[in-house]
């Protein structure tokens, strides 16, 4: 198919078909989620369930791919669905305008091959990790603050987020002071999308490692933690 011509041979024809059969849950359609959705739609992941309870605000314009002056006040999930339809109508999008909660997490994960954590608060991220573990589904975590980004792949039971967050009891991190920059979100999200595609295709990816990106220092570090 001509649409996917430039995916090859980095992605084989068999792998292309495999991607079309996969379903991914993306939780959060903001700075990270918007770019993850864009990348997965363009590469040809067949089914996406996109979840976010928010509407766009003016402060999202500095970094969120799906946010424009035209859709302020409108649901992020609607913008995600419209964007995917415009970019790749072969991709089926199930848009859920809701916050992830303990009550709905397992239902949202149902039928998915992977979950992508594009959330912006600590409690919801921990809920997603717990639910993904219970469902036996791998999860790709991403987080940003200022010039810094982080990605890790969490296989069910690894609980890597407990290393990053648990002892604090805080709901937000450094991003409250440092803000979030467009290129940090785009780079981190792109890395999340790549790890997600590798998971879907059974290719080796990050394993028991935390990937740290510092765009101010132009450095990338992999920290082995498991």
């Amino acid at each position, binding site marked *: 198919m001509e649409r996917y011509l430039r995916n090859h041979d980095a992605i084989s024809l068999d792998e292309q078909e495999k991607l079309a059969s996969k379903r991914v849950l993306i939780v959060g359609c903001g700075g990270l*989620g918007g770019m993850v959705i864009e990348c997965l739609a363009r590469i040809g992941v067949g089914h996406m369930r996109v979840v976010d309870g928010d509407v766009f605000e003016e402060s999202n314009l500095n970094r969120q791919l799906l946010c424009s002056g035209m859709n302020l006040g409108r649901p992020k999930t609607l913008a995600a669905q419209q964007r995917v339809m415009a970019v790749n109508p072969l991709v089926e999008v199930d848009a859920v305008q809701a916050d992830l909660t303990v009550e709905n997490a397992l239902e949202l994960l149902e039928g998915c091959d992977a979950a992508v954590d594009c959330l912006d608060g*600590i409690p919801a991220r921990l809920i997603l990790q717990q639910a993904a573990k219970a469902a036996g589904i791998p999860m790709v975590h991403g987080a940003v*603050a200022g010039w*810094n980004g982080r990605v890790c792949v969490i296989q069910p039971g690894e609980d890597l987020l407990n290393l990053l967050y648990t*002892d*604090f009891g805080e709901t937000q*991190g450094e991003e409250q002071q440092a803000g979030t920059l467009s290129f940090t979100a785009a780079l981190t999200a792109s890395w999340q999308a790549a790890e997600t595609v590798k998971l879907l295709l059974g290719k080796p990816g990050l394993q028991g490692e935390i990937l740290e990106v510092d765009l101010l220092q132009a450095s990338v*570090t992999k*920290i082995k933690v498991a």
Partner: protein
Amino acid sequence: MIKVNTEDYPWYPGMTVRVLLDEKLFTFRHIIVRVNGEFVPEEDYEKHPIQDGDDVLVLHLMAGG
């Protein structure tokens, strides 16, 4: 020698978490420190000793999306 985020780092007697953070220039206001897997709260940075051979994990607290 100690490990800091899986990389070797020279150790010397008297080293504390605070000394290490200052030397490594960890500048974020919100930092997570674990020594041999055990979380060290910020109020203990000055008094928590780093021993030769310790495995230290220092991460910025980040949750933006």
